[in-house]
């Protein structure tokens, strides 16, 4: 059974990827898949609504460029606001994860 990501998780991962380098949508999907070693089941298309949301919030900006296969492609780039948002999200995610982990951890006596 496939588990849904929690809201905002995909956006967080996209921002993290873009933090390293600007890239286009297709590359983003491949990167996330590769990095997560296919542990995460992501519907490839679901990336695009997430990107639109990020564009609207101005956490990323996009420019048209040319891909390695010589096709016209939109390349996304992290903005300063996006970097700040990412840092906030990551720290809150880490706290959440820590909390969950503690609850799930076998009891120490």
């Amino acid at each position, binding site marked *: 059974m496939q588990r849904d990501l929690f809201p905002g998780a995909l956006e967080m991962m996209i921002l993290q990827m873009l933090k390293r380098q600007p890239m286009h*949508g297709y590359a983003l*999907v491949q990167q996330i898949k590769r990095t997560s070693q296919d542990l995460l089941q992501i519907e*490839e*298309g*679901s990336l*695009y609504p997430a*990107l639109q949301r990020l564009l609207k919030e101005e956490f990323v900006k996009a420019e048209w460029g040319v*891909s390695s*296969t010589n096709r016209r*492609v939109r390349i996304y780039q992290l903005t300063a606001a996006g970097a700040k948002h990412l840092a906030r999200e990551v720290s809150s995610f880490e706290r959440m994860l820590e909390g969950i982990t503690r609850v799930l951890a076998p009891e120490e006596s």
Partner: protein
Amino acid sequence: MSWLRHLFSRRRLYDDLDDEIAFHLEEKIDELVAGGMPLKEATAAARRGFGNVELLRETAREAWGWRWLEDLSGDLRFGARMLRKSPGFTAISLLTIAIGVGANAAVFSVVNSVLLQPLNYPKAEDLVALHQVAPGAEGLADIEDGLLLSPSMYFTYSEHNQTFESLGVWGTATANVTGLAEPEQVRTVGVSDGVFETLRVPPAVGRWLSEGDQVPNGPQRVVLSYGYWHRRFGGDPAVIGRSIIVDSRPREIVGAMPQGFRFVDSDFDLAVPLAFDRGNLTLSGFGLHGVARLKPGATLAEANADITRMLPIWMDSWSNGPGTNPHIFEKLRITPMIRPLKREVIGNVGELLWVVMGTIAVVMLIACANVTNLLLVKAEARQQELAVRKALGAGWIRIVRGLLVESVMLGLMGGVSGVGLGYAGVRLLVAIAPSNLPRLNEITINSRTLEFSLALSVLSGLCFGLIPALKYARTRAGSALHSVGRTVSASRERHRARNLLVVSQVAMALVLLVSAGLMIRTFVALQRIDPGFTDPQRLQTMRISITDSIAEPQRVARTQNAILEKLLAIRGVKSAGFASEMPMEGFHLAWNSVFAQDKVYSEDSTAPPSRLYKDISPGFLQAAGTRLIAGREMSWSEVYALRPFVMVSENLARELWGTPSAAVGKRLRESPNMTWHEVVGVIQDVREKGVQERAPEIVYWPPLVQNRYAPSARTATFVIRSERAGTESFLNEVRAAVWSVNPDLPLASVRTMQEVYDKSVARTSFTLVMLGIAGAMALALGIIGIYGVMSYTVSQRKREIGIRLTLGAQGSDVRQMVLRQGTKLALMGVAVGIGAAFGVTRLMTNLLYGVSAHNPLTFAAVAALLILVALLACYFPARRATSVDPVVALRCE
């Protein structure tokens, strides 16, 4: 705003997204093909991996938050298509709304310009009229103007007040301007110091009249109105410093006022200083309007208290001559009733306009009810479509919104055409409005009217869309899909809303028609009144002033007599005469006390009540058609001989001596230093102040009287009875006749008595016309409403009627059934309407004359008319019902 920027570039954003998705898929396919997969499989695999392209595209678009907007535009397009699809329905609805909104926009623009907009003065909210009443001064004060101010009051108020920033007094008059082109009689306003300062409107050129211009017998100055400045001097600014001859005296022009400037409610040509001579003022001479500007923060109550405090100061500071007791004026019981200047300008027209506005609003309601009905019928026909949409998953909010968008669109489209009609309507209104309607020249359609029309359109759109929307959006999809099937006849439930609307329409129409009916009765009652003159359309009237160059009263009278002789010589003139004024002309009338010789007046009691004084020439009664009740008229020879003769009105004769004939031979006088004047004739009562007003008691003096307190007026209204009255050729001959006596004589107010009369009843006829129009519209809309509902009911009940006919019902039974239903609705509407009309017509009591607000005959006649019309509206649908062929009816659908 980035949201808005994105909105307008969203087409590009969407294209970008599509390009991007296409790129993604191509890239993926390339990769898979490179990995050895056949193209076809690779394409399928890429799509599978991507997910539902359409859905993702939708979700991506939603990220921008335009969903509702795009839905709305979808609704709009759908609505427009629905409206286009039924052009008949759309046209009728649009016309109904357009008429409703147009009529409302027109009346609102009048209400707005006249009642709501502040006056055209800087900080007009601080301006007040120094209105005062004097219950103890019958005759001196009248209901409309109250007790006007005397010059001495002005000085006291102006010097001792604590609540006014500035104040002044003004009064209207006429003057003769000579030496420009032909002699001209112009409207003047005499102003004291302080009037310009209070009104604060800066002059267009030059300056205001200043304190230095108010010196008696000092320099003679004048300020021009914009109209006069342009008419006579072409608006030339170099006019400052020039002189014009006003009443035989040169006056220097010091300024001209800008366009639209009026003294409170008075248009004028010239403003001249009143230049009171302080040394010669008495307490009385109450003839001036007071205007003041309140100090910041001062209230009307404080100002009233201030005036009350100053009245004793006034009585102590001035007198009416040696030996008189100034405190006799305490008997007048003068009470200040200061009111906002706007209230003074608007006068009693506010009530009239609100009645008209209310009437037109009711027409709008009826129009809305009609369109609602049409929409209900349409929604019924669309039930299946709505049910299908609901079955496909549309929420009821979505459906309601769709229907509302459609009806608001209808409302707005109707409203836009309505505003066009409104422009025409305003012109019509201004043309038929009483010419004494205040601020008539300020009436325009402005942005406020447009906002009002817009709001009205949207509101009515929501209003008539909401009922069908709520009614049909909530029906369950299943039952709706079923009941539209062929086996079911219409349920009672479905008709309730429409029946209710018809009942309310009939009720509202009844209210309007009753109001119109009462106005008609009023008008008829006014027509029956004998105003004190006959055949007004054959009576030519004009004002002629004898210029100052003719000084002695005898010569004035001889000049007037000579004019009459010349006028009588004109072809077609039957009779001619003159009087200080004709009834209903509205010039300021003279009032004073009358002492009868055979009555005892105690010294310390109040003076006898003031009576209206009029001067009439020999021949006047015959010319005007005023009847002599008893005694006889005077002749010119008696006038010149200064015979102490006088005439009185019938009601005065009855009051003083019991009967008209008893009055003949009695004597009266104005003051102790006047000889007794013998009453030689008694004249019928004349509606001097208007047809609806009580005829006042009048003393008629000859043109020449010795020792009168006020000398005979130099200005009189000449009246000529002729079949040719009002024609241009006649007027030319009249002018030539007047100028043959003296080429310097100006003529003014040239009109027939009919015009004077019409102006006097203008308020009534305006209300009548407005209510008549509204009533006719209501009746027409009501007929359409009943007819529409009945004929639709019949078409819906075809199956049932078919069954009845098959089972043996006669055509007449079916016809009666339909008629009965229609009559029931009409009767209910009439019942409700009579109840409502009882309440509403009470509000217009002040507009009625000679008929009670609850006149049973009018109510009964209107009710009968409505029922009759309703029957007629049902008759055609009923006839169609009986022509139903049972076989066809049962097979149809």
